[in-house]
């Protein structure tokens, strides 16, 4: 089946989704995805970040699809034509979703362990508005302790439900889930209960934001100060591959995670023993430095990109006040001077 995305064509097998086809092509046209995770069944469709425009349904039925489609759950058809980054409508929708995701988000990146490897940060960088239009009070949740390994920050959660799918598909006793509904839906065990299962740590890796972080790494370091290395060990846990990324600061292993690809998905899931209990260099065979995508903060290890000089628009008239503001202050007409007229 042939599918064309932003003018680039590719042949795919039946059953391939638009997002998967886009990832096969690669580059800028790949839609962002906050809830879809190729290794978790039933994931996707919820965050609406990956919306694309289908301008031609298929060769057989060339009508365009009236609504934007979630590319992660929409199957390719032969002859389908899709606009992703090239469509203004799509860009607008992604901006909208980003705004919605951020209005209630605490924006506490400076104290968040996910900062630097956070999908929501990346999404905001690309599609976010630096100025918020939301002036209401943000929604907050009571903290809940879910055990010794995993820190839950519900305020940061975007309800992708990946962690629930991990518990369903990797463990045999799910004790947490999505409770309540609407904008008060939350990830919880209902009554503070430890999530304790050999594969529960993968919830941290699949979390796209800082809602689930590693308690053993909490506040230890910013991720970009760590150097990631591929490592492996002979793991005896059934089902664990023993292949990890270890995050080092000097000679110390500060954190162990699964090996993540360019879409931040782990290549294989790992067990809690590898993740939490093996922090000695002697436990591991270090294979070598792990490569990251070129734009990653972690790869650059510092901000080296040249920034353009920013000119603040109000600078010129700051002493005068802006025209529109002054009108709001008083109903009476204030005579305008020449300076105002020019501004």
């Amino acid at each position, binding site marked *: 089946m042939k599918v064309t995305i932003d003018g680039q064509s590719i042949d795919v097998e039946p059953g391939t989704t638009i997002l998967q086809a886009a990832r096969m092509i690669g580059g800028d046209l790949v839609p962002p995805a906050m809830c879809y995770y190729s290794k978790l069944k039933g994931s996707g*469709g919820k*965050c609406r970040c990956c919306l694309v425009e289908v301008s031609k349904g298929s060769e057989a039925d060339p009508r365009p699809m009236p609504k934007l489609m979630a590319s992660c759950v929409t199957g390719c058809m032969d002859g389908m034509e899709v606009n992703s980054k090239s469509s203004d409508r799509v860009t607008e929708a992604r901006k909208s979703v980003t705004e919605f995701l951020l209005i209630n988000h605490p924006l506490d990146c400076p104290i968040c362990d996910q900062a630097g490897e956070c999908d929501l940060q990346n999404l905001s960088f690309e599609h976010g508005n630096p100025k918020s239009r939301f002036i209401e009070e943000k929604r907050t949740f009571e903290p809940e302790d879910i055990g010794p390994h995993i820190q839950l920050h519900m305020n940061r959660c975007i309800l992708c439900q990946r962690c629930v799918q991990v518990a369903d598909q990797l463990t045999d006793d799910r004790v947490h889930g999505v409770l309540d*509904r609407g904008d008060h839906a939350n990830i919880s065990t209902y009554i503070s209960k430890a999530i304790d299962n050999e594969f529960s740590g993968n919830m941290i890796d699949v979390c796209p934001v800082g809602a689930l972080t590693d308690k053993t790494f909490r506040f230890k370091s910013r991720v970009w100060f760590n150097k990631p290395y591929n490592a492996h060990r002979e793991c005896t846990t059934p089902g664990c591959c023993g292949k990890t990324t270890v995050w080092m600061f000097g000679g110390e292993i500060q954190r162990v995670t699964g090996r993540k690809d360019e879409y931040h998905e782990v290549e294989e899931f790992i067990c809690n023993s590898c993740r939490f209990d093996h922090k000695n260099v002697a436990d591991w065979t270090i294979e070598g430095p792990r490569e990251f995508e070129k734009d990653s903060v972690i790869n650059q290890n510092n901000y080296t990109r040249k920034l353009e000089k920013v000119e603040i628009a109000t600078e010129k008239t700051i002493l005068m006040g802006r025209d529109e503001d002054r009108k709001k202050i008083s109903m009476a007409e204030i005579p305008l001077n020449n300076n105002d007229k020019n501004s």
Partner: protein
Amino acid sequence: MSQKILLDKINIPGIKTYEVYRKNGGYASVEKAIKTLTPDEVVEEVKKSGLRGRGGAGFPAGMKWSFIDKKSGKPRHLVCNADESEPGTFKDRYLMEFIPHLLIEGMITSSFALGANLSYIYIRGEYMWVYKILERAIAEAKAAGFLGKNILGSGYDLELYVHCGAGAYICGEETALIESLEGKRGNPRIKPPFPAVSGLWANPTVVNNVETIATVPWIINNSGDDYAKIGIGRSTGTKLISASGHVKNPGVYEIELGLSVDEFMNSDEYLGGMSSSRPLKAFVPGGSSVPILPAELIFKTANGEDRLMSYESLSDGGFATGSMLGSGGFIVYNDTACIVRNTWNFARFYHHESCGQCTPCREGTGWLEKILWRIENGQGREEDIELLWSIQSKIEGNTICPLGDAASWPVAAAIRHFRDEFEYHVRFPEKIKNREHFVAEPFSQVKHLVGGKVIV
């Protein structure tokens, strides 16, 4: 006096019981269908009738039936959507409460047409007493041999059960309803696959509204062509309308589609005009989610034609000057009603009922409500009106299910047609302190204080 198809027998004493219902011609359609027709012939009659889904979307029922996957060999199910919860709508409850056997009869005939051997009626949990009425009616029908094994000696088996929800508007969306019937949270599913291919327990399933199914017996007893003769154009047949708000005779009415809005609103046979001397200000023709229309667009369309109670006429002019028939929830407002408060109230409803699964609806509905609450309480800013417009446009069309659209449309329509009322709230906070601010001083008297541009 227009023809009654659903409510013609509703005033017969004891029609709730099997004996009386049967004596008055009840279950004839089951006998006719099972003994003289094939399932496909039943589907064909319903197709010919032009009957459109009465839950709100108006999708042709016969066509929906024909999509059901009969090739896979999996068991098929018919599920009746009795999760009536659209504000302004209370017709299904009336039908089920007062003539429950009509729905049961429709379920049997329709299940036969679809080849379903296990069917359910999903009723909202709040209608608990109606749930019990239906349970008793099913037991009566079963005792009379219309349900169970080998119905009327035909070899066709059908079990029918009632399943109750527990308070969630979203379960009126067909895939959320199916999830709920499976004992889960009412989260709508991602489509495709559609229920006709993979519905209840991944089996092919058809979900139809109560009124749709209750219409099937008449179509089978008479014919699809006879039904298509009633009504106007593609709006065939009759429709139950639930009327509420500031009208003289609120309640449930069966009308022939094509009746003029004027006659429905003002004749004594129907609503009998307004409830008091206060003039008509606005109306919502199809339940809270469809656009509200101002007085001048109610009886005449923008082209000056008579506005009719039909799918086409009510939507004439698109959203700019029209609305939708929706579920037939006819809400009437006189000039004491505040459109901002009403819009806030609906926004609160959708905020409360959002399932929380997808981002735009989860976050956007709450935002809309908060802003509207501020405006209604004198904390609004001029730019909030643009902001509301922007937010609703960002929710609409970007969500998994139509709840996002349903939350957006009332806000958009209120701003489109009553923008000056929003501006009044923003500019004169001291005048709207009392929640009944338009009772003593209706907006028409203060309208000259504001005047804004119109967004279409």
